[in-house]
């Protein structure tokens, strides 16, 4: 995907070989029809390769050999995109990262250990349905009670919501937001599976109907999770755009080969200037996407002052041009491109489904302007 150290290369290659063996594209539709969207033991074996520990601090059981955990995770995400692979990569990592940094010793002892080993899966319950679907909008209420907190509201769509053992729930606490670690199956928590564009990614709506949770569910301090949620958003979006880049790469490479091999009017498609120029544009979009996705992971790893700006630039750009690229690949293929007989649809689904999640391209562009305005005022 982008410049890597020797260790990173090795790490990425291990993941690549594993996914090639575990997720051949020909079996993807049957696998997708299974309950979790992937085979038994898949996630645990993936965790064994290091997929779940990368953005968790080393002193609580996480860590990455390269010291660039977010970039490493982005490399895994890229491979997931390249193979249209299933699994709670984003959810488990975000939940583990949050507990690893801000969780209580009890949360780290139990749930974190399970998430790291792959025995349990995590889902990030951040997004809410309209009219609260703007980036950063949290309406679900957490009211303090004698026993702890009462959660009231809806989270949707939640990726991996139906399979997760733990939800990381963001909730409004007065002027601030709080985070809670809620085990699946709590009274008052209703999980409804949703239909999804992406065959191998499952989403759910989670209704919190006067759900009473103990005080020990709190992650960090009440009403003070704003910066944490912002950081987790940046991590999640970084993984997301890396995954989109992987799917774009598959679509581009496959379509390029097709253009060389497909003949019409006695000439390969690749010999027509109209087609060539469109490939030139697609190559530009792909390289630009890879470049900004790499910078985003770097900005989060190094926690640069402009971290969120680079991440939002990445989501804006990849979110705007990723679907254009894959749709153009469909166009180059003609009718076969919109059938189940060709694998292209798996990648079209992967890229498209990511566009509105964790902020639309437009919302991220707006976030960039807000950051600029804040800087202007500060000056």
């Amino acid at each position, binding site marked *: 995907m982008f410049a890597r150290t020797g260790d990173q290369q090795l790490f990425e290659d291990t993941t690549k070989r594993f996914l090639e063996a575990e997720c051949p594209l020909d079996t993807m539709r049957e696998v997708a029809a299974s309950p979790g969207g992937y085979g038994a033991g898949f996630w645990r074996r993936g965790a064994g390769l290091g997929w779940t520990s990368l953005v968790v601090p080393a002193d609580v059981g996480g860590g990455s050999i390269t010291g660039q955990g977010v970039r490493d995770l982005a490399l895994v995400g890229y491979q997931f995109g390249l193979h249209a692979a299933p699994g709670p990569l984003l959810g488990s990592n975000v939940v583990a990262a949050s507990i690893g940094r801000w969780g209580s010793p009890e949360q780290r002892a139990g749930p974190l250990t399970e998430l790291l080993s792959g025995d349990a899966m995590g889902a990030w319950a951040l997004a809410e349905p309209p009219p609260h679907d703007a980036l950063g909008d949290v309406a679900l209420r957490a009211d303090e009670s004698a026993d702890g907190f009462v959660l009231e509201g809806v989270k949707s769509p939640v990726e991996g919501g139906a399979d997760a053992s733990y939800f990381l729930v963001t909730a409004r606490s007065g002027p601030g937001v709080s985070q809670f670690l809620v085990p699946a199956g709590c009274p008052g928590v209703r999980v409804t599976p949703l239909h999804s564009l992406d065959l191998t990614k499952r989403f759910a709506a989670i209704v919190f109907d006067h759900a009473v949770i103990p005080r020990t569910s709190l992650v960090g301090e009440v009403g003070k999770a704003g910066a944490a949620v912002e950081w987790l958003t940046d991590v999640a979006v970084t993984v997301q755009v890396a995954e989109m880049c992987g799917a774009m790469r598959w679509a581009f490479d496959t379509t390029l080969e097709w253009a*060389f091999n497909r003949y019409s009017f006695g000439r390969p498609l690749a010999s027509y200037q109209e087609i060539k120029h469109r490939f*030139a544009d697609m190559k530009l979009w792909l390289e630009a996407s890879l470049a900004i996705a*790499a910078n985003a992971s770097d900005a989060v790893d190094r926690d640069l002052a402009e971290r969120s700006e680079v991440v939002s*630039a990445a989501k*804006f*750009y990849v979110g705007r041009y990723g679907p254009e690229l894959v749709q153009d690949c469909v166009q180059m293929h003609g009718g076969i491109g919109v059938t189940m007989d060709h694998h292209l649809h798996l990648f079209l689904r992967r890229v498209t489904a990511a566009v509105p999640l964790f902020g639309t391209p437009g919302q991220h*562009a707006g976030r960039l302007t807000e950051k600029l305005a804040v800087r202007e005022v500060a000056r």
Partner: protein
Amino acid sequence: MNDEDDVESVEDFAARARTWLAASMPRAEGGGSRAAERTDVEELARIEHSRGLQRRLFDGGFAGICVPRPYGGLGLTPAHQAAFNREIRGYQYPADTQVPTLTPCMSVILEFGTEEQKKRHVPPMLRGETCWMQFLSEPSGGSDLAGALTTAVRDGDEWVINGSKIWTTGAWWADWALCLARTNWDVPKHRGLTVFMLEIHQPGIEVHRIETLSGAREFCQEFMTDCRVPDSQRVGEVDEGWAVTVRWMYHERTIAGGSPYVTAPAGQPAVALDTTGGPPALLSLVASRGLAEDTKVKEQIGESLALSLVGDALTARVAEQIRTGAGSDQWAAITRLWFGTSAVRNSTICFELIGSTAVAWSDEEQALGRIGIRYLMRQTSCIAGGTTEMARNAISERVLGMPRERRADLDIPFRDVPRNAPARPQA
């Protein structure tokens, strides 16, 4: 101590540059006038100012960072130049002496010039004493550079040049030019070209100025009539000028970013096509109109901010691909396509943000009127410096390996190649 120990680390160099810049370089000013509104006297003053800034860099020991020491440079690495470009953000820089003087002209001379030519011509460029232009495009064909009709005929130790070149920015005030000329009409087009260095202001060269729709008269056309050039000003071998031109084109594409010879604030193409600072600079204006919280406005400005960050990332990625050999130098066409298309997008965003004031403005609203005029000139960013169509050809054919376009001008003597047909009669 070996040679490596002698090289100042990038960090030390950057720290030294920071101190020097703060003490020696004027801070950048906002705004900037539009070329069409400047008198020739003002334009010449601006060029003199730029030459002075270049001289300051030279005297301060920061000119020609990647140019070998024997030719007046520092002999450091592209990483040192990149660090300097980061440090010079917020300061004035000698825009008019960078492009096309240092790249592509100096880059070509460093690569193909004789020892004597390099020692004679490179140091004055670094001191801001000579500004160079490209005598490349001709009125007969925009993108088809190898179809040059300008002809050089040998006469003893000299060459006699006849023909016309066009689209040279600022030839009326510049000093020297690199000129591509045909030296053999009896061989296929790419095999009969030669490159020369020539002084612009000499008998035999007449410089005309072209008025663009913006009212600016920056572009020039030159007419060469029996212009005499000594053979010592030939760059590369006779009839092998196409090999020089291919690299010349490469260096021209690096104007958009990635050249090791260009000093310009990082994140900004060496040629500032839009001196307003683009849509983000309009933030306070839209705020004064009560539109700061308008979602659409925020998205448009954010898009421009994103394009700027993506452009930085892409430029670095492409430069890295070329440096490591993972991609050929043809990858520079990707950056060229980026800056053309993203500048178009920025121009459109500015125009939409300003609305009707960009179409009809009062005396007090001149700055906003300029946005409208810039929008009319929008396609310049996709035409000048090699069109984006040529960049798309290069990407598809030279980067992706797709079949070349069919052509009717190969393997036959150039004099037999079909040329522009006379205008068709009106129906």
